[in-house]
């Protein structure tokens, strides 16, 4: 393009954009929204928001943590192949922090004033311990945030012997040693060795924690095996970096997937909307384009002008979206140390979106370039006889406006079809969003269906187990009390331990949410989460040899349950299936409350009744952790609605353009302005109704399956997906259609009242 054409084209583009600012802004916003969603999604999926990665690198964290009764043989541990450095062993004592009437378990860990070389906590507020800080404590940040602890504030702990010690928070620190509170309990706090010795003088009531930093994190398993062989009976429990990472990432992955799904579908919708908008624009501007050609524009130049104009809007949207995406990932997800998206996926998203937008623009622009240069020749829509639908409408004596509008809707088949699809895709995604919403609501309303029949778990802690059970049963709001124990189970290849949860007995099982097969009913029978079935490669009905709590056991898996914890890698069985050493006394009790009972109130009552000796935990509903999904659904619905609106505006302007000339005829035939407006509204409205209904139906039919698919892959298991209620669907569809008709009716009424133009188009 020469300078001269460039100048002329710039004028044309400027004038055209000025004439349709609103639509241009819509295009930019819609594309920007989609790019934002895609970048956020990629950041989440890439683990950029998982603070573990950054924390582990910054603190030079240890890959494996071993909790032992006494200090282990450090020299032997450091000789294990793959071990690079050893952190600790640190003496750790369990204490209770009393804050505002609430008791929280704390692991008080010794630390020197000189930060260690491996797994050194990262001071985030205040300062690290100094040799003179006899009453000073540094608190892990998430724990401090959950309990609203501030630097300089009190930190009064009660040791197991009942003695109370007043400490002062001198600093907050982050660590990759364990996950965030409250998902990972107990909370962690560091004190000087002499302080710890003062609080808990009895060595027998504390444990020793040792961290192993490996040369390569992938070697974790052999090292774990080596440590188990070496320390054997001494080991109380172990945790690896994978568990810490998984606990920190928690729901980011699901969120990322959701965003990716919406982003990709949104991109398709945006491509359709863009193609529709450009195509519609080319049709409405046929005469102007012909005039440009008669002035000396070549086919290629018309194409270039159209691509430049509409492509620039898309690229502007992409630029805006990239900025928004980067801002969202750093600002909105704050509190997490976000690593920015690496350049490759970022480039891929930007380039991919740009390519999609440019192709969507180029196809109709190419058609625009082929416009014949005779501006006088009106590009009339293909006329023809009344369609079958229209004739049927006449037959059943529908008002003429409806009949004529019905006919108008399909005079241009391809744009009509594209308009319907362009509206159906966003509508489908909105319906899917509503389905996710309904599923979350369902989680909250029926926690028993996601395996959380017990709203509270009670750990006897200081009390004898029977007393704890008696107290729980005595509460008027408690419907049932199930004894439970959790032990680790080793799968047949002995490479990975999973959680075995005994809750209730075979005769009186806990109300697990069995979605396939049946509940266990005899000793040796068990139900499993999807994650475990996948891990074992087992199916319902299989018998699996496992080592449960150290005892070999052949487990007959008789059913699958919805299992929201531990990626579904949980084996659930009756207490009678476990060895007595693990079940007598039960480690905890699961409390099923009566309908409508407030878990907080019951928990407080139990605490009071036991003289604060019980430890009462409330089940964290997965929906509470997934609350951010609702924000995402709302934001995406807005973007999708923008896309729908873009399509609608295109359909509307095309409808007006095609039929403006008929207005005179219609009026001459005796139609009132109201009927003329109704004709125009029907023409566009019919497409809207078809698109909305098709989209809603498609969305409603796939949403359950999609959520179940996600449930399956995440280990929770299928059986959680919910379709939005019929009422919700009807209200949503009616809202969409109503809004669309409103948008259409204003210009239609104006057109119907306006003086009929006598010029050709």
């Amino acid at each position, binding site marked *: 393009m020469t300078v*001269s054409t460039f100048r002329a084209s710039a004028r044309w583009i400027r004038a055209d954009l000025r004439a349709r600012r609103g639509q241009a802004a819509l295009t930019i916003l819609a594309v920007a929204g989609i790019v934002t969603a895609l970048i956020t999604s990629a950041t989440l999926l890439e683990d950029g928001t998982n603070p573990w990665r950054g924390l582990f690198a910054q603190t030079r964290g240890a890959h494996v943590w071993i909790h032992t009764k006494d200090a282990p043989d450090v020299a032997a541990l450091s000789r294990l192949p793959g071990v690079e450095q050893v952190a600790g062993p640190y003496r750790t004592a369990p204490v209770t922090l009393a804050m505002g009437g609430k008791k929280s378990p704390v692991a008080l860990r010794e630390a020197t004033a000189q930060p260690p070389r491996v797994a050194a906590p990262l001071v985030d507020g205040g300062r690290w311990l100094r040799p003179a800080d006899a009453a000073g404590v540094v608190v892990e940040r998430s724990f401090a945030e959950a309990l609203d602890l501030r630097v300089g504030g009190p930190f009064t702990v009660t040791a197991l012997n009942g003695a109370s010690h007043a400490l002062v928070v001198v600093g907050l620190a982050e660590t990759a040693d364990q996950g965030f509170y409250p998902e990972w309990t107990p909370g962690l706090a560091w004190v000087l060795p002499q302080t710890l010795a003062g609080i808990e003088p009895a060595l027998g009531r504390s444990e020793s924690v040792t961290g192993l930093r490996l040369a390569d994190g992938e070697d974790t398993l052999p090292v774990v095996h080596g440590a188990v062989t070496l320390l054997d009976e001494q080991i109380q429990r172990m945790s690896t970096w994978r568990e810490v990472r998984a606990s920190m990432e928690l729901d980011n992955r699901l969120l990322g997937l959701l965003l990716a799904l919406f982003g990709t579908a949104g991109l398709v919708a945006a491509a359709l909307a863009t193609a529709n908008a450009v195509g519609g624009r080319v049709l409405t501007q046929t005469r102007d384009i012909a*005039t440009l*050609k008669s002035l*000396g524009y070549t086919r290629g130049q018309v194409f270039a002008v159209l691509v430049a104009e509409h492509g620039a809007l898309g690229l502007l949207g992409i630029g805006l979206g990239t900025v928004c995406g980067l801002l969202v990932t750093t600002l909105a997800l704050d509190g997490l140390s976000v690593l920015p998206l690496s350049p490759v996926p970022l480039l891929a998203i930007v380039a991919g979106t740009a390519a999609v937008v440019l192709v969507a623009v180029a196809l109709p622009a190419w058609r625009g370039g082929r416009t014949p240069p005779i*501006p*006088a020749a009106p590009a009339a829509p293909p006329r023809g006889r009344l369609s079958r639908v229209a004739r049927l409408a006449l037959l059943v004596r529908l008002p003429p406006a409806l009949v004529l509008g019905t006919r108008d809707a399909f005079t241009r088949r391809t744009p009509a079809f594209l308009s319907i699809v362009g509206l159906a895709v966003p509508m489908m995604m909105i319906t899917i969003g509503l389905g996710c919403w309904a599923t979350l609501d369902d989680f909250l309303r029926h926690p028993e269906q996601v395996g959380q029949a017990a709203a509270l778990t009670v750990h006897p802690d200081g009390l004898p187990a029977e007393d704890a059970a008696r107290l729980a049963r005595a509460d008027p709001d408690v419907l049932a009390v199930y004894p439970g124990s959790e032990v680790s189970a080793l799968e047949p290849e002995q490479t990975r331990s999973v959680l075995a949860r005994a809750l209730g007995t075979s005769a009186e099982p806990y109300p697990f949410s069995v979605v396939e097969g049946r509940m266990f009913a005899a000793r040796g029978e068990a139900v499993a989460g999807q994650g475990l079935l996948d891990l074992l490669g087992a199916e319902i009905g299989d018998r699996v040899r496992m080592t449960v709590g150290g005892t070999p056991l052949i487990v007959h898996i008789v059913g699958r349950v919805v299992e929201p914890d531990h990626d579904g890698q949980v084996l659930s069985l009756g207490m009678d299936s476990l060895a007595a050493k693990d079940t007598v006394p039960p480690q905890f009790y699961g409390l099923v409350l009566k309908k409508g009972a407030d878990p907080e109130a019951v928990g407080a009552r139990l605490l009071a009744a036991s003289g604060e000796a019980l430890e009462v935990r409330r089940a964290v509903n997965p929906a509470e952790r997934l609350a951010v999904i609702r924000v995402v659904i709302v934001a995406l619905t807005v973007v999708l609605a923008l896309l729908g609106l873009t399509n609608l505006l295109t359909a509307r302007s095309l409808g007006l353009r095609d039929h403006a000339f008929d207005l005179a005829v219609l009026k001459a035939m005796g139609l009132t302005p109201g009927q003329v407006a109704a004709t125009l509204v029907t023409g566009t409205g019919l497409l809207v109704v078809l698109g909305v209904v098709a989209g809603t139906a498609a969305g409603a039919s796939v949403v359950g399956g999609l959520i179940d698919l996600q449930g399956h892959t995440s280990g929770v298991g299928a059986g959680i997906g919910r379709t939005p209620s019929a009422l919700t669907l009807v209200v949503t569809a009616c809202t969409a259609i109503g809004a669309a008709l409103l948008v259409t009716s204003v210009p239609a009424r104006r057109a119907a009242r306006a003086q009929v133009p006598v010029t050709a188009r």
Partner: protein
Amino acid sequence: MVNTVNLVKIYQSGGVPVPAVRGVDLRVEAGEFVAIMGPSGSGKSTLVHMLGGLDARTSGEIWLDGRRADTLGESAWALLRRQKIGFVFQFFNLIANMTVADNVELPALLAGASPREARERREHLLGALGLTGRADAAPAQLAGGEQQRVALARALANKPSLLLADEPTGNLDSRNTRDVLKLLTDVHRDGQTIILVTHDARVASLADRVVSLLDGQIVDDGAVGTFRRRPKGTAGDVVELRG
């Protein structure tokens, strides 16, 4: 200046060939004002469109300024239009989104003028056509006659050697018709070659020469009086002639 040799145009309408122009030999000299007359469907618009390259010929030759033009491709025709041809249409065809000023400057810019030159040319043309005050108006705000005057200014903005006008007064009332015709005679007097299509004998009578088309063939080709430059006249002359 313009020369056609056995020019033929046949449209295909539902597989049936419909001849619109059937072997037209037309020669127009530089500075000539030729009116092409004929009833509806006689092929006069098609002929003018072919002369401007808006429509492709079926057979025959078109020569412009001694160069053969009918063999040019679509893009080459576009470039030729930029440099040498100005079009005025019956329905004005101003670009609705652009101001009057931009509409007029567009062809000048396309022809390679600098923005300053284009602006000066536009100011000159709008001034000459009595539209100075309307430069920033949108075309829709103008009356029909004003719109056609803007269209004329646009057609002249690239200083074309050939002005093609397709029923320029077909959509105007008599007063506006008079104004536009006066402008055409004025630019013709300055040496502008004009080919004008009309079915109005009174409009045609302004031309140096009237070519009558019937069913795509020239049935009459005669000079109005002798081939001459008109003496400098006023609007009154036009009224007198038409009367």
